[in-house]
């Protein structure tokens, strides 16, 4: 009998507490910023850097709201929402930008997939949204006509 029952539970509790601390710390201390995806200069490359090679399908369950015409490409309002269950990540791309990936959101367990953001668009092109649910990417895309480019 090298270890008492009390000692055993103490050790288990300590290991458990340490693990929970360790699982929180990297999130705060290490940047999770996905440089590869943000620096990619083509839409397909940015998607692959971010999500790997998951199958992509167009989905009307992803609601993407953008203006048809944006007079100022420096401020283009984009809203994304969905009633699809199981979405864990949403990314917004502007196809014609020098770096197409604009922003990426982790849909945390308590978060609802309903976000809005103002983005820059270099010129007329598609705003593309990818939502990850399970091992699939669901895509929505809308053309925005930009009068004055916003990446100058």
């Amino acid at each position, binding site marked *: 009998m090298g270890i008492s029952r009390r000692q055993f539970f103490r050790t288990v509790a300590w290991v458990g507490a340490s693990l929970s601390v360790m699982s929180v710390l990297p*999130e705060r201390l290490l*940047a*999770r*910023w*996905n440089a590869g995806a*943000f620096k990619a200069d083509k839409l397909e490359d940015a998607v692959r850097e971010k999500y790997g090679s998951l199958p992509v399908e167009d989905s009307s369950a992803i609601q993407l709201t953008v203006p048809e015409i944006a007079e100022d490409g*420096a*401020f*283009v309002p984009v809203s994304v929402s969905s009633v699809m269950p199981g979405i864990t990540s949403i990314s917004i791309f*502007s196809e014609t*930008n*020098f*770096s*197409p*990936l*604009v*922003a*990426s*959101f*982790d849909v*945390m367990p*308590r*978060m*609802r997939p*309903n*976000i*809005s*953001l*103002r*983005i*820059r668009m270099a010129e007329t092109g598609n705003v593309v949204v990818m939502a990850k649910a399970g091992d699939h990417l669901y895509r929505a895309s809308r053309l925005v006509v930009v009068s004055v480019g*916003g*990446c*100058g």
Partner: protein
Amino acid sequence: MKVKAVATNELTSVKLLIPHPMETGRRKDQSGTIVPAHYITEVMAEHKGEAVFHAEFGPGVSRDPYLSFEFIGAKAGETLTISWVDNKGGSEKSDFPITSI
């Protein structure tokens, strides 16, 4: 940073505006020199120690980022902690009250 967090029933709607130049690193100033990239890379929100929002930004987000999101499980009177970091090591972290309508 301006934040409005409003709880209705179970759902809390958050709108936030972060004053920040969001320089892309491609813009030239009047003398023709490139203005170095300076943009927010991450925005986070926590409620009662639990992450309820995490976003990664690139330079394609507009100057003075304005965004909104929603989460469940908070009540008016509680606190939401919002923080951000940028590519030059700048950061901000502040507490904001969750209000009812």
